[in-house]
């Protein structure tokens, strides 16, 4: 990830900030300029709650070098409570524990780092909902 892009997208990565269509109320992540449902241009920033359910997943054993520290890790399709289905990494869960349909919640974790001298990138991942 390059630094300008990471900086520009920080609220997307930290706050799950997408858009909401003012016309038909559809919510989008990532954010859009034109609503794909009704073609309205009236979309405004919308922060998702971070609650969701696991739709499907895949366990990664052979990872790109920047993710090697986390192997094995799980890449998932997450159905957000407000509608959109997004791709995200899971955390605090092992391949033995993961179950389709399990309730998930957003947390902020390290996504990658550029070696020992470069920037550390933080962003959303999902973990099994902590009940209390």
């Amino acid at each position: 990830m390059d630094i300008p892009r990471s900086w520009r997208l920080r609220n997307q990565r930290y706050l799950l900030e997408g858009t909401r269509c003012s016309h038909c109320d559809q919510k989008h992540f990532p954010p859009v300029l034109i609503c794909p449902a009704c073609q309205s241009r009236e979309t405004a920033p919308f922060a998702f709650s971070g609650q969701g359910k696991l739709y499907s997943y895949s366990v990664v054993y052979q990872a790109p070098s920047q993710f090697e520290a986390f192997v094995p890790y799980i890449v998932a399709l997450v159905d957000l409570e407000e509608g959109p289905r997004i791709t995200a990494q899971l955390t605090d869960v092992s391949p033995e524990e993961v179950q389709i349909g399990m309730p998930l919640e957003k947390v902020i974790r390290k996504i990658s780092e550029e070696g020992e001298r470069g920037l550390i990138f933080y962003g959303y991942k999902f973990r099994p909902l902590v009940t209390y």
Partner: protein
Amino acid sequence: MKLSMKPDKPVGIVGYGAYVPRYRLPATEISKLWRGGQDRGALPVKEKSLPGPDEDTITMSIEAAQNALLRAEIDPAQIRSVWAGSESHPYAVKPSSTIVAQALGIAPYTTAADFEFACKAGTEAMQAALGFAASGMASYALAIAMDTAQGRPGDALEYTAAAGGAAFVVGPAENAVAVLEGSCSYSTDTPDFFRRSYQKYPEHGNRFTGEPAYFHHIANSVNTLLGDLDLKPEDFAAVVFHQPNTKFPQKIAKMLGFSPEQIKTGLLAPRIGNTYAGASPLGFTAVLDEAKPGDRLLLASFGSGAGSDAFSFVVTDRIEAVKHKAPSTESYIERCVRVDYATYARWRNKIRHF
């Protein structure tokens, strides 16, 4: 001359939050590898908390502060300070606090700074935040106490160096769950424990760690505060001391006249180890989870170098309404998965590639 401190304007803790990562390294894993299992039944803690490979002081601070905001029930944009106390900030230059502020929707109209003072960096941030709110400069201020401590492999500190901490939103007493009665800070130049720049692991001046450091500083901050507030040990429902191991907090409690019952709820070290700057503040969140309106609580930190901050708080009725708005400290401690030494060594970068 009065030596303790008391704000003119009544302030307190409006929201509090804890975080402990879900992994644990049993002390027997360490003694098995480095001592052939010869621990003579005298391990300093049972196990220690360990961050996952994608966790650090910043990610853990975000979660604890999120919990504090849930209990504070305020708009994050009302916060005017994000002060993060830690000895394990991921960057040497670039504040942890700006990332926390951005991730929680507190940025941009806030002060943001990282505090350092070994194990009392967190209560140092609390002192400053309470003063900031009491002066009226800020309605609300956020103080964080968080660490992912590291001990040199094989060193005595490796058994206890753990990860976790707490965050506190402080503000006006009328919204508080615990109102500040007074505080006392006691600091001297004492070389009991230190880490030079660019060094990964700390050094400890062995003969200094006990009497002249931990016990001397805490005894002075607590006794002076109690004297100035005209309070006795039995006036407190619960007390939390810095807990580098299980024994030190038990010993200082006895020295100062507190009972084992008073320190029980806040003594987490036997189960999660020493979370350094996070330790006494995290113990304090466990006490708040169990507190009842009217309870008087004492929090006393210790940081090497050296110093101690002592605070006296009185719990308000609002505690009952907000306790359950975020995960309890106990729920984080119970949520645990034990790992072996090899996993720990990999995650904590103790294996070098040549």
